[in-house]
């Protein structure tokens, strides 16, 4: 019977812990991500070890250490900084543990087994282009940037500016960081409206800030273009109600699931049948197609 047991395990041949490390689940995006990964891992018979590094590279490093000492079979990681995470991932590799990056890439190749990311640059470009369209290629606008020490905030802002920069009639009158925070976005928006009452659009580094800005605009009785990024459920609702005009959905769930799937095949066969770098395209969400989307995935 013991033999049968082994056979069963072999047939299933996915077992042991998989570490799933993401930023704080207090942000619904990362929550859905790690939930999806964990769920998938369970389906495949892994023991998911769900951890959070709160965007603190030092803590991430400790968590990787722990994953190693726990003998994790693989690590699914949404990392805490393109450069600051390389060492941790390499450490895992040296310990013989494959790392499958999701959502954010790192500035090194050949270290992670897979980098399944929604191309932030492409996402932001999509959003920016829609913003241009909604603005009619002209008018004054404000950009809300995320935590400026985060790679993503930088990449997204860069993409925005490259697109919007091509339209001379689109004038950026202010650029402020709201540190990904709804409250800060609300207060900064209120204040900026005082300096620039004549703006006709706000483009934001993520949906949380976009929502904050939208609330401030609503309170000020202004109905202008608000574009976010992430495709969070709240944002999609806001688009339906017209508080926001567009966001860009990152396929968080899809990324997470395929990361686990690839982990399994790698553990089984030592390869993933995928290139290391896999960029999943984001999808533009507008009033027209909002109803087709659920939690970070098409319904």
């Amino acid at each position, binding site marked *: 019977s013991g033999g049968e047991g082994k056979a069963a395990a072999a047939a299933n041949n996915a077992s042991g812990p998989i570490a799933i490390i993401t930023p*704080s689940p207090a942000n619904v995006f990362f929550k859905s991500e790690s939930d999806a990964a964990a769920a998938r891992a369970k389906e495949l018979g892994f023991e998911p070890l769900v951890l959070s590094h709160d965007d603190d590279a030092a803590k991430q490093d400790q968590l990787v250490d722990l994953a190693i000492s726990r003998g994790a079979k693989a690590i699914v990681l949404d990392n805490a900084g393109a450069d600051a995470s390389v060492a941790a991932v390499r450490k895992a590799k040296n310990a013989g543990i494959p790392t499958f990056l999701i959502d954010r890439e790192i500035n090194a190749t050949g270290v992670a087994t897979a980098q399944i990311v929604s191309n932030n640059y492409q996402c932001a470009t999509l959003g920016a282009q829609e913003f241009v369209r909604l603005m009619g290629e002209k008018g004054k606008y404000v950009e809300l940037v995320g935590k400026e020490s985060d790679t993503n905030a930088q990449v997204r802002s860069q993409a925005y500016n490259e697109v919007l920069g091509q339209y001379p009639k689109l004038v950026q009158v202010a650029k402020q960081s709201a540190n990904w925070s709804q409250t800060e976005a609300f207060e900064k928006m209120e*204040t900026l409206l*005082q300096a620039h009452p004549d703006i006709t659009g706000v483009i934001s580094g993520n949906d949380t800030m976009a929502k904050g800005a939208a609330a401030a605009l609503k309170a000020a009785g202004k109905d202008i273009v608000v574009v976010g990024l992430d495709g969070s459920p709240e944002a999609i609702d806001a688009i339906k109600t017209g508080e926001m005009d567009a966001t860009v959905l990152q396929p968080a769930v899809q990324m997470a699931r395929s990361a686990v799937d690839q982990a399994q095949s790698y553990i089984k066969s030592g390869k993933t049948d995928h290139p290391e770098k896999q960029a999943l395209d984001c999808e533009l969400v507008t009033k027209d197609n909002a109803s087709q989307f659920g939690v970070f995935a098409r319904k």
Partner: protein
Amino acid sequence: MSSSVQATGEGRAIAAPARPRVSLEVLLLRLRAYIALIVLAVLFAVLSPSFLTTGNLIILTKQVAINAILGIGMTFVILGGGIDLSVGSIVGLCGMVAGWLISDGLVLPMFGIAVFFKVWIVMLLTALVGVGVGVVNGLLVTRFAVTPFIATLGTLYVARGAALLLSGGATFPNLVGHPSLKNTGFPTLGAGSALGLPYPIWVMVVLAAVSAFVARKTPFGRQVYAIGGNEKAAALAGVRVARVKLLTYVISGFCAAVVGLIITSQLVAAHPATGGSFELNAIAVVVLGGTSLTGGRGTIGGTIIGAFVIGVLFNGMVLLGVSEFWQTVIKGAVIVVAVIVDQLQQRMQQAALAKSPT
């Protein structure tokens, strides 16, 4: 006998000329708190045309209200010789509670039903939660003799965790309530206004007035000062130390709950991370207002001014488009400099009073 009266008669004679100087002392003391504020205001008025517009001043004051209200509660705690690090988390928790009561209602599994409340009841219940955390803080400090810093550091983590658990980290969006549930109108608190002033400003004004009165004119207020000054002596004088201290934390918890409600109502959404590190602002505001962190000395009025210092700074820098990084640096510098100025003036004042001939 008469002779001893004599002696003291002389004593008075010597000291008598002090009288006029008293008012001067007080005056200087008042002025001190204003200086940083005036300097900043003038600076920004010059640098940014939009600063002195009515609209901006109203927005500014509305934003000040947040720190001011937190500061009021914090002032009582600090006057009583304590400190409350948990206010930020209480803001977050209470926001979530309000959001939860409005969107999901109070779920009673045993009956398999959810009860929805009128908005004012929601606010009441939320305030109660804030008060509850305050009571916990108070008990930890008084009954279990835990240092305030640690007691409230603990509740900081616990309350934050609770806020996150309440929704599993998710946001309660779009808290407009539903006519059929008779729980509409929540956004009014944050968005509505009376006599041209947004409600949050009114809330601040009322709370400030009431607390200033309580602090100055009631036995409770006096006893808070006494405890902050010398707890043992206060106890021997029959002050119910435990009770009074507990009350200061309750007040602080209540103020935090109010802020939680205001913010949630403004955003029309409850986010569990709201209020992170608010405590630092609240404390800064209190100290900028000239209240001593060792307790026993300070005023509510000062705290309000302190809140305006931070508010004006924030508002002005955003108007001027100062980068986030520099904002951080400048904020720190201003806090320190303001307090240094405060110190210097206190000293100069003392010196002046000592020199002036008797």
